[in-house]
């Protein structure tokens, strides 16, 4: 009986759905986290009677055929790249992006990774780095004698040096953007890498055409909405139970068959 296998695909899909939801809830307070959403598609259909075929030579057609589906599959767990809430952190090197773009990070092996998490720090050389010590492109080194550092909406980093009246320009933070942000691959540590699906990165300064601007002293929170996640969780749990119920009912039918004609 096919129903048994069909229901098991449903149970597997709902299990994955709960996995995705639980990861979203776990990362509710992760800076720059973008929630994922499981999307499902129906599986192949077995055609027993195709609609639209002729039933007589007078041109009568089958109005609705017999098509038996074989369950569900996961199509994607795409990220929803909407803006997260921006929250004041009052830390000097905390940056939030308002609008499009991702920070470009230089990985230890020289490749590029991208993030929306702008909670940066300085390393021993005064370089602007992520929590893991990776350099933020294009590499900004703050002079050791700087009194204070300001980063404006265009990404320009300026330091006030004792004895100088005017602030000193140090560099401009670059952002990158992709035509298909949802196609980026997550590698953990709040980082994304480019894939053939995301397209090539386009680099540019903040506030230029198509890029968002920067906000110093603020962080972008995750875009997880707890109400949505909890209601999706309830829906997924109930859908799982329903599929389990189909397994039970099919089992009862099979057992009725095996118990027929017991001598």
């Amino acid at each position, binding site marked *: *009986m096919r*129903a*048994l296998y*069909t*229901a098991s695909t*449903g149970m597997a*899909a*709902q299990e994955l759905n709960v996995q995705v939801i639980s990861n979203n809830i776990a990362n509710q307070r992760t800076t720059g986290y973008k929630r994922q*959403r499981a*999307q*499902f*598609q*129906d599986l192949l*259909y077995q*055609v027993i009677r*195709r*609609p*639209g075929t002729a039933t007589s030579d007078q041109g009568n*057609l089958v*109005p*609705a*055929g*017999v*098509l*038996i*589906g074989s*369950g*569900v599959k996961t*199509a*994607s767990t*795409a990220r*929803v790249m*909407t803006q997260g809430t921006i929250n004041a952190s009052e830390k000097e090197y905390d940056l939030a992006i308002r609008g*499009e773009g991702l920070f470009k990070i230089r990985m230890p092996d020289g490749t590029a990774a991208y993030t929306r998490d702008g909670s940066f720090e300085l390393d021993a050389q005064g370089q602007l780095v992520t929590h893991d010590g990776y350099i933020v492109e294009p590499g900004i080194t703050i002079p050791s004698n700087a009194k204070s550092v300001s980063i404006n909406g265009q990404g320009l980093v300026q330091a006030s040096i004792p004895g100088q009246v005017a602030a000193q320009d140090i560099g401009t933070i670059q952002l990158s953007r*992709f*035509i*298909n942000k*949802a*196609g980026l691959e997550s590698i953990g540590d709040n980082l994304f890498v480019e894939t*053939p*699906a995301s*397209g090539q990165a*386009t680099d540019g300064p903040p506030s230029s*055409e*198509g890029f968002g601007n920067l906000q110093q002293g603020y962080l972008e929170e995750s875009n997880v909405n707890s109400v949505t996640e909890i209601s999706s969780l309830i*829906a*997924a749990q109930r*859908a799982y139970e*329903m*599929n389990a*119920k*189909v397994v039970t*009912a*099919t089992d*009862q*039918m099979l057992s*009725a068959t095996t*118990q*027929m*004609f017991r001598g």
Partner: protein
Amino acid sequence: MENALLIGLSRQIALAREADVIANNVANVTTNGFKARSLRFEEYLSPTARADSFPRNSRILSYVQDKGIGVDLTQGSVEMTGNPLDVAIRGEGFFVVQTSAGERYTRDGAFQLNAAGELVTASGARVAGENGPITFSPQDGRIEIGADGTITTAQGQRGKLRLVRFADPRSLANEGDNLFSSPQPGQPLGAKGRVESGAIERSNVRPVVEMSRLVEVSRAYQNISNMLQQTDALRRTAIQRLAETPAS
């Protein structure tokens, strides 16, 4: 006597198939744009021999046959997602999708972009616009989809979603991947097409209905098993009784 067994069997085969259809509906309870299907049965009247010389009039036997699986095209519940590339159709109509096998139709409006900036479905098939595929450039900024399916960005209009309707939507066949195929091409919906952006149409499977039908199917199946068992017992008893030699 065998007729009772065979008629019972025809019903059981049909019920097992109905259970398959329910299982598929339940498995797709969270599939975007999924349309529930339900099985329809018909009587299959068996031609029987007719002769007046028979001691009793011959009776017509009616078997069960599954005739078609209707598709329920009612609107599924619409969930607001806020994602600019999610589109739900309000009322009738289908999105047109270009696949390698030709045009296919879907109600699943969870669209994405591919690396070339084209609007695609979750399985990567291009979504058709009124004037060919819909393509975006990295400079486009925020994408807005109007109520009539017009797509605009900061750089201007980018096309319009093509919506079609079918004179006979029952002839739609499921292809998997949330796609339908149709023997006749769809007719343009024109100004009647209404879409909602930032929303997704969920499956229209009604869990309560499916669960109660499932119970019904399961019970009917068991009843027929019992009936077949009783028929068998009747026959066995008959053989035993008739074969008994009368005590002399």
